[in-house]
């Protein structure tokens, strides 16, 4: 990902920990342009509405309601703003909630600086970003249900299952592969990998697969 060739993405940080915000700002300040910060749902909606950034780095846990509240409020007026969810807890209910609310990706707070900058750039470009944990989660949630008793089909049955290629891609993400490594491993282009991931994201957001919710409720990401 050559970030140098493009204009820097404009980013708003939303996190209730001031220390974390300043840390992230210091770390990725050169790879992205941090235009604003907010520490809660209300201020975040304000700042984002005013600045209309490319990407919002959004903590899943905010005191005045979850991150999904911010997404829901902003999506109405500024559908072009993209969200990258960031969480320390990995509680699947929260993660699945922000993803389904419309976040383009999810990473853990332990992510390295370069990976974070990379992820922000990717989201700014309209691609999806899955951490290895989220990939494992999606695989698990979409796992073939042998009995099939709990599956309430969506209008579009294609939304309810992953193609074998998508599963392969997710499996490699879960093993910590980068997109570039995945492309090499599967003999496909990085662009194809990205499109697979985006399609998984779409399924994740749109599928009414009953198991998805149940899975999130029952299981905790580690």
């Amino acid at each position, binding site marked *: 990902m050559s970030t140098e060739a493009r204009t820097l993405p404009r980013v708003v940080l939303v996190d209730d920990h001031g220390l974390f915000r300043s840390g992230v700002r210091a770390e990725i300040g050169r790879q992205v342009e941090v235009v604003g910060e907010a520490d809660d749902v209300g201020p975040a909606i304000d700042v984002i509405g005013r600045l209309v950034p490319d990407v919002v780095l959004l903590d899943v846990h905010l005191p005045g309601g979850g991150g999904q509240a911010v997404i829901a409020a902003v999506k109405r007026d500024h559908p072009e703003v993209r969200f990258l969810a960031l969480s320390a*807890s*990995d*509680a699947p209910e929260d993660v699945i909630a922000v993803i389904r609310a419309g976040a383009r990706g999810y990473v853990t707070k332990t992510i390295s600086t370069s990976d974070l900058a990379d992820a922000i750039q990717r989201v700014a470009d309209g691609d999806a970003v899955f951490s*290895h*944990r989220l*990939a*494992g989660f999606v*695989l*698990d949630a979409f*796992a*073939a249900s*042998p*009995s099939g008793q709990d599956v309430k089909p969506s209008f579009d049955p294609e939304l309810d299952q992953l193609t074998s290629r998508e599963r392969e891609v997710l*499996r490699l993400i*879960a*093993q*910590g*592969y980068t997109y570039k490594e995945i492309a090499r491993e599967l003999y496909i282009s990085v662009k194809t990998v990205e499109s697979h991931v985006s399609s998984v994201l779409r399924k994740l957001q749109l599928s009414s697969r009953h198991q998805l919710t149940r*899975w999130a409720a*029952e*299981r*905790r*990401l*580690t």
Partner: protein
Amino acid sequence: MAGKGPAGDDSCVQQEPSQPPGPPFRVRDRHAWHGERDWQGRPDWRGRPRRWRRRGNGEPLRRDPEDRLAGGVAAGVGAWRGFSPTTVRIVFVVVALISQGWTIPVYLACWLLIPAKGAQANIWSRARHDSRGIALAVALGTVLLVLLGLASVLNAGLINTYGWQQVPSVAFLVLIWRNAPDSEQEAMRHLVEPLESLGGGQGTRRGLGIRLAVAVALLAAGFGWLLTSHESIALLRPLAGLILVTAGIVVLLGPWWLRIARDLVLERQARARAEERADISSRVHDSVLQTLALIQRHADDPQQIVQLARAQERELRSWLFEGRTLGDGDATTFVEGIRQIQRDVEARHGVPVEIVTVGDCPLDDDLNALLAAGREATVNAAKWSGARVISLYAEVEPEQVEVAVRDRGKGFDPDAVPSDRKGLAESIHGRMTRHGGSVTVQSAVGEGAKVTLTMPRSAASAEAKGGSRR
């Protein structure tokens, strides 16, 4: 008592008459003189009490809540006159039997009128401002009167003999209940519980009235039925009477019982919350604070700090988000086994292991072998690859279980590894093939390594999978 006004004085006089007619106890001689006078002087007791009080033990008569069965009156009288409270109590009971229950209202009146030890005023001084309490007392007394009237019309001898005296008892009880200090109320709860539903009513006044009316009607009808059924031959009538009486009691006491049950639940919840809080704080102390202390002491050793922080993070995570304690017990499911590998390798080799698991299933022999091979592969990577982090991926599928151990370390040429090198050869290859699994090693110098272990699932464990998959 001197300063407490006529009410206080009355009480000690009322107290006295119940005692002298008692059987010839050891105390009788001392007691008899004023008892006798009291007994005789009853019609005009209002004028007399002051004279005897000076003969007391110096202390004014006070109820003793410390040593009480009900209101502490007997204990107070005992202390006042120098008897053992038990003696006084026996006298009370015997007199109650002889006097057809008259001691009970007298006792309650004393309770109402004698101040408790250390208290400034008696209960009556509060009760007389409690208009609702008085109204209730009168209402209850009236209710009882009506019942007794009904009973006497029906010619029930026992009720006629013992019932009427308790009309003031009920009224006194209500007043005491509503106006006693908190500490006394707590202890009284056992004695007067049923009346609380009437006196302390949480419901509206109208609801209370309706309930009372219904209950009285049911009770009256029921008692009437029961009492007249002596002459009746029909066996069903006593039954109907019993049902009516039961219904009346339920209507009367149901809300009280419900409230007790609810209080119990609330109390249990509060206790659970308190325990949880204690658990959290002890957890934070035992693990987080200890780790922070360790980190401060190892401030000059970044490797150690990362390791400590990592271990603590993992422990906290598994406690917070998986609701389980991080014990060293044997794993019973595949994912637990994978977590154990993560823990052990991180602890022993100081290299973070990122795990992602998909699905889960119970362990069997084959899967134990797979775990052992996976552990060996992870340890190898931690020891030799020099990678910053090792990724351990495990997926349980219907037909097979796969474990992939991957690092971005220096890598090696799989073909160049001598076949006698034990780690890869025996521990991994040998183990997997013995159990019908397979091993794939992908690596090149400078490109990291990936060891993929695949174990087919036995029929039994595959069958159990449906339920175990989360």
